[in-house]
């Protein structure tokens, strides 16, 4: 009842948090495993029998033990069931052993840290875009206290609570909470209090945001369940027909045959007999529901998962990490993916910003795109890195490839110096210098870090800052600038500036910001320079670089004094402060002189654009769901080919006016979809409960950008349907500013309305929710911890492995699974339905056609290995072709290879085969004798002929299905057939039969029958009759009903004979026309923190003392 949480603590001395957490881990490993040594057997058996199929066979076993209806020996069910149960049990046991997860982390209430004011540097990049530092609560000498706080919830940005400490109450807010998944940086120690423990249930805010963890089942699993129900119904109706037949037969014939075969004493009438025989047939025909289906499916999935683990082409050497299939139950779904939801940071990009190019005073520095390509393709890295050895404070990791810029710096070009000076001054970076000469920057955004680092390397080293000064080492000479004001960044301004006083007592304003904004604030005199710079910016944008414009303004001292006054007034005003501030800012940020522009490369992971292009060709739609800003997200979307310049239109959904935007969008993409007469609309109105939105084809390529808050409105209102219809028609969709939960909601939405397979890929804790929500979750094991990976189904290190996972492994798994299922159902139908035909000749007496041992071993021994071989080794085309023709992936998305229609085909094929398999041997033995005059028309010989024909037929059928004959396939397929004959002679041998005459009754049948010409003639006839129509069908099908895939296959087969044409490289297109590529991933409000000096004072004193000592 108590929604609040009370925590009290009493500690003598505090252990550092790390140790605390470590201790916690030691003692609180979460036990997610289900079994121990003692409860394993009963618990596992209990769980297994909860599965419908196993329970069914248990019931069947009991039925078989009733003598009145038992038509099969008990062991025909017991032996397969035992084998199946034990294989599953072994697999469960192994799975279970793996599940000892590493320990939890909790949300931590920060109490104090090593840093001044108990600030703690935290990277919460995982949660909502990169940002650093959160002010902590500072309690230095604490020994006891009490915290009352809210109950666990999923709001990442809210936390309320009260800390009672020494009789005083302190209010707690979310700033003081370290969420699970944060990384503490550059902080020596900190103390904290564990608030929401994962251990106490998934209480942490992040876990609350992660969505429910459900056991994922594939579409195929659901389909199988449906099919098993169908089979049940089919089975029931067959039993019913046969029972009626039995009733009629007993009435007409059996009654009069009682002289030789009297009715049992418990059978008063033919009706009772019919009821009993219904169950007898139920037992006989039980093999329609294949007992080994589920276990075989699991083995196949396991095998195909192993291939993923073993794949060297998905092994990432720099991190020494192979791909991991963490789930072994989803493989074939990998071949059916239609939508990919991708995170941006760390997934598409490396999350590394590199200062790549710049334009200073109309001069272009850095390699041109063309030269760069040339360099890459010809002699690799011919151009040397620029040598920064003249600068002792340079960052050795920084590299730049244009010497002219260094020469310009060395020459003392005034503009270049000013440019770098502005970069080293205008920022909110903090520096740290624990060892003399080794600077470490704490940047709020990686962009800013990259810029300051660039300035540092070119000789304008930002060394330290206080609340009032910034020290810069300019070409080896330390100069201290007075910091007069920071005009902070915000989303509307899209720029930041600082005002500083140089040692020469000049007041300067340095500004950097988006080109679109800044170019309007420039002094008219630099119009020409602006045009040149804009051209350069275009070049940058084309390459997908993130750009900023840099400008300065020299201020008149008196002007600044007047402005400063206004500024402090605005700062102190209580009403409408923000607005007042920004208008004050605007007064000073004008008539600026343009210095140049910077271009930062948000480094994509290797091969991302190519991968996206390949996935596009495979008709996989790619959505980017990111917590990052719209501008950066769009930038990346262009860089990775998700958006293209040739797109017919791009729409941005912002604010609450979604509906009109969506309407407008649809009007453009597919005008008829708004009419009531549109078939989709009719479909949707006629089925209000909404099952599935059909695929709609727009009239061009469109892109959609939607941000988090608009999405929230869309999801809350009734716009979901509209949104899905619109978004799914777009080529690419970017959702930005998303919370983790929203990411999951988007995935759920598409899952719900489109009923297609979705895949989510991400690397951070903020992606966990969507990874869990999607049908398949893929974790990138990157820099952002293990959260995503631990919750994923598949994990690897590079985004580009996704194409291999889907197009190669997924496609193979899907094709193999489909082949397996088709064949598996077929072989069981062909096997079982023979009994049905025999019923008409055996008085519907539930007589089996086969020897009971054949029934026992058929699924388990005789036919299991070939089909496993097929579904573990078969490849219709090799990996090169799979990747080269992504179109081959399409049939999986529409589930063309195994669906209800295919199942019916299997059924019909099975019925046909069983018909042949019964009537050909029957015709052969009818009133027939051997060449020595002795009979062969006895029941046991007939059984032998039928079962041998059956085995030949199913073996030939699988031989026909196999397209990739490895040695193992040969051994499995032909070995199984040979093994059948070995077992046959063993089971029918004198010794065994005489030892147990009532169990092994077929003494000598093999010897007497297998040498008969009739028998082999009959087998050949059956095989030909069963196989030739299939060959004919396979031959004619692509001729009569050609599909896209057939044509591609033809091309592949043709080109395997002829020499290979060189592979066409996927052409990479960069944006060809202008779009502002401005990027600023700041959080607002940091400037104030600096000027207030809160962060810095103690450090400054430290530094000062250090200087004094010097």
């Amino acid at each position, binding site marked *: 009842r108590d929604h609040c949480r009370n925590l009290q603590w009493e500690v003598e001395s505090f252990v550092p948090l790390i140790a605390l957490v470590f201790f916690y881990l030691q003692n609180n490993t979460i036990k997610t495993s289900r079994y121990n040594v003692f409860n394993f057997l009963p618990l596992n058996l209990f769980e297994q029998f909860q599965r419908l199929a196993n329970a069914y066979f248990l019931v069947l076993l009991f039925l078989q033990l009733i003598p009145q209806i038992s038509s099969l020996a008990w062991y025909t069910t017991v032996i397969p069931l035992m084998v199946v149960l034990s294989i599953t049990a072994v697999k469960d046991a192994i799975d279970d052993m793996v599940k000892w997860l590493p320990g939890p982390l909790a949300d931590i209430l920060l109490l104090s840290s090593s840093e001044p004011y108990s600030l703690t540097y935290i990277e919460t990049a995982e949660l909502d875009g990169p940002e650093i530092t959160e002010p902590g609560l500072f309690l230095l000498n604490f020994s006891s206290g009490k915290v009352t706080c809210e109950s666990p919830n999923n709001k990442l940005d809210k936390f309320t609570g009260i800390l009672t400490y020494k009789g005083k109450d302190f209010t707690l807010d979310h700033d003081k909470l370290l969420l699970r998944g944060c990384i503490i940086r550059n902080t020596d120690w900190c103390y904290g209090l564990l608030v929401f423990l994962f251990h106490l249930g998934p209480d942490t805010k992040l876990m609350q945001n992660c969505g429910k963890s459900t056991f994922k089942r594939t579409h195929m699993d659901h389909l199988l369940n449906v099919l098993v129900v169908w089979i049940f119904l089919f089975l029931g109706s067959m039993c019913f027909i046969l029972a009626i037949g039995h009733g009629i037969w007993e009435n007409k*014939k059996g009654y009069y045959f009682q002289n030789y075969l009297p009715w049992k004493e418990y059978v008063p009438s033919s009706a009772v007999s019919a009821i009993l025989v219904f169950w007898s047939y139920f037992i006989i025909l039980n093999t329609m529901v294949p007992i080994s289906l589920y276990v075989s499916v699991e083995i196949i999935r396991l095998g195909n998962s192993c291939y993923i683990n073993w794949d060297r082409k998905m092994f990432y*050497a720099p991190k020494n990490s192979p791909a991991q299939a963490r789930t072994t139950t989803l493989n074939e779904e990998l071949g059916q993916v239609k939508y990919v939801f991708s995170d941006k940071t760390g997934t598409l990009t490396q999350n590394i910003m590199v200062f790549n190019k710049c334009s200073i005073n109309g001069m272009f520095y850095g390699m041109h795109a063309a030269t760069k390509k040339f360099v890459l393709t010809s002699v690799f890295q011919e151009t040397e890195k620029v040598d920064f050895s003249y600068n002792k404070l340079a960052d050795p990791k920084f590299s730049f490839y244009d010497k002219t810029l260094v020469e310009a710096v060395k020459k003392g070009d005034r503009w270049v110096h000013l440019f770098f000076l502005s970069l080293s001054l205008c920022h909110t970076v903090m520096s740290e210098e624990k060892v003399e000469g080794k600077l470490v920057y704490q940047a709020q955004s990686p962009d800013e870090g990259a810029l300051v680092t660039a300035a540092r390397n070119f000789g304008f080293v930002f060394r330290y800052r206080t609340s009032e000064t910034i020290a810069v080492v300019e070409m080896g000479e330390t100069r201290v600038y007075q910091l007069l004001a920071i005009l902070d960044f915000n989303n509307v301004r899209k720029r930041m500036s600082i005002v500083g006083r140089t040692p020469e007592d000049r007041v300067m304003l340095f500004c950097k910001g988006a080109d679109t904004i800044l170019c309007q604030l420039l002094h008219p005199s630099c119009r020409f320079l602006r045009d040149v710079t804009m051209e350069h910016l275009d070049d940058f944008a084309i390459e997908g670089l993130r750009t900023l414009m840099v400008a300065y303004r020299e201020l008149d001292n008196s002007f600044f004094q007047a402005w400063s006054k206004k500024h402090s007034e605005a700062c102190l005003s209580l009403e409408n402060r923000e607005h007042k501030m920004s208008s004050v800012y605007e007064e000073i940020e004008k008539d600026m002189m343009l210095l140049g522009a910077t271009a930062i490369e948000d480094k994509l992971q290797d091969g991302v654009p190519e991968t996206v292009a390949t996935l596009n060709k495979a008709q996989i739609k790619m959505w980017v769901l990111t917590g990052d800003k719209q501008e950066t997200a769009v930038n990346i979307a262009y860089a990775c080919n998700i958006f293209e310049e040739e797109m017919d239109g791009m729409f941005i959904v912002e604010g609450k006016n979604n509906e009109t935007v969506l309407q407008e969008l649809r009007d453009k993409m597919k005008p008829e979809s708004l009419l009531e007469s549109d078939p989709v609309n009719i479909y949707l109105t006629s089925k209000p409960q909404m099952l599935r939105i059909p695929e709609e084809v727009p009239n061009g390529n469109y892109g959609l950008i939607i941000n988090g808050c608009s999405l929230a409105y869309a999801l809350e209102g009734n716009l979901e349907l509209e949104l899905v219809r619109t978004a799914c028609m777009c080529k690419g969709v970017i959702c930005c500013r998303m919370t983790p939960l929203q990411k999951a909601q988007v995935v759920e939405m598409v899952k719900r309305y489109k009923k297609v397979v979705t895949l989510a890929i991400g690397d951070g804790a903020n992606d966990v929710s969507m990874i869990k929500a999607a049908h398949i979750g893929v974790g990138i094991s990157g820099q952002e911890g293990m959260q995503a990976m631990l919750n994923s189904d598949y994990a690897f290190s590079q985004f580009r492995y996704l194409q291999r996972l889907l197009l190669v492994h997924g496609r193979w798994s899907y094709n193999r699974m489909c082949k397996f299922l088709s064949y598996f159902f077929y072989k069981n139908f062909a096997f079982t339905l023979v009994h049905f035909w025999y019923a008409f000749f055996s008085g519907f007496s539930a007589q089996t056609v086969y020897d009971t041992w054949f029934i026992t071993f058929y699924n388990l021994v005789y036919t299991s290995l070939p089909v496993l071989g097929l579904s573990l080794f078969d490849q219709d085309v090799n990996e090169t072709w799979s990747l080269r023709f992504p179109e081959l992936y399409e049939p999986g998305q529409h589930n063309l290879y195994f669906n209800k229609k295919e199942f019916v085909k299997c059924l019909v094929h099975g019925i046909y085969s069983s018909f042949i398999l019964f009537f050909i041997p029957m015709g052969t033995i009818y009133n027939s004798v051997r060449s020595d005059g002795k*009979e062969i028309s006895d029941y046991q010989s007939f059984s032998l002929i039928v079962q041998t024909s059956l085995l030949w037929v199913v073996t030939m059928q699988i031989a026909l299905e196999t397209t990739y004959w490895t040695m193992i396939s040969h051994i499995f397929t032909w070995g199984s057939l040979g093994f059948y004959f070995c077992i046959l002679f063993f089971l029918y041998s004198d010794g065994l039969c005489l030892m147990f005459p009532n169990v092994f009754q077929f003494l000598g049948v093999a010897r007497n029958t297998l040498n008969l010409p009739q028998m082999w003639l009959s087998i050949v006839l059956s095989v030909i009759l069963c196989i030739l129509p299939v060959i004919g069908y396979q031959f004619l099908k692509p001729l009569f009903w050609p599909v896209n895939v057939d044509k591609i296959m033809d091309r592949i087969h043709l080109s395997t004979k002829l020499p290979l044409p060189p592979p066409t490289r996927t052409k990479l297109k960069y944006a060809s026309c202008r779009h502002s590529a401005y990027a600023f991933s700041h959080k607002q409000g940091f400037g104030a923190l600096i000027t207030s000096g809160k962060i810095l004072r103690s450090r400054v004193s430290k530094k000062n003392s250090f200087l004094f000592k010097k």
Partner: protein
Amino acid sequence: MTWSATAPGAHQPDNTAFTQQRLPAWQPLLSASIALPLFFCAGLAFIGLGLGLFYSSNGIKELEYDYTGNPGTGNCSACALADQGRAPPLRCSCAWYFSLPELFPGPVYLYYELTNFYQNNRRYGVSRDDSQLSGLPSALRHPANECAPYQRSATGLPIAPCGAIANSLFNDTFSLWHQRRPGEPYVEVPLDRTGIAWWTDCHVKFRNPPLVNGSLALAFHGTAPPPNWHRPVYELSPDPNNTGFINQDFVVWMRTAALPTFRKLYARIRQGNYSAGLPRGAYLVNITYNYPVRAFGGHKLLVFSNISWMGGKNPFLGIAYLVVGSLCILMGFVMLVVYIRYQDQNDEEE
């Protein structure tokens, strides 16, 4: 879970053909150049085989006689009429006269055929005890439950052999007489009643229980014959090697038929003058009519037949091969036409 701690390459998967799915493989392709010849070859082969089978089956001579004795169908009607109740009269006999205008080439086999007789009924088929039949003394005294209601006699004695199959043993007997020329007396043709069952059956599968004091009768002491039988199992034949469970008539009967119409070998004619076949002349089969079948609409037939390399007369395989062969060729032509038209279409498209 972090890999970085270990040596570089430590977790790199093995580079084997198996793990990288690069196993060398043969990839056959169903192309026109394979499918079409396959159909034509299969068709031709089948037609050839079919012709051979058809002619060899046609060359076999068969002589059938239905002696069920339905009213007006011959002189077994009297016996059949007497058999109106369930228990047939003892030793009612009738005869079948026929004449052969020419030699019936040998070796000739005499079969009896039953129709509408469901030896393949499940309850019938399981009603036996193979342990007992393999001569196991304990099973002799304690027949299996499957034999019920022919497990124990009314007096409680174990029935040997137990079960419905044994109880329904076919017990008509036949003797064949030959009259060379009209007016001459009929001479009995020797019928070989041994060698009619599978060797494995009468030598391995079926065995008499161990003799007691050298006597088979004593071995069966304390058992009752099946209710339909007129004599105990050890008196089935005077020949000690052909009596008891290994009596060949019995063994043949116990190998139950797969279909409700079946033939069972009664005797081989291969001795004396008749080894080359049945010479021309008049013949008489003397039938001891014991076995009632009319109650359930069954028929009893007598069949003389000779055999070829592939067994007795059965036109099925020959006809089936001919039909399937023709279908293959027909199908081959259809496929050829479709293939050529498709090729043309493709060329046009290009």
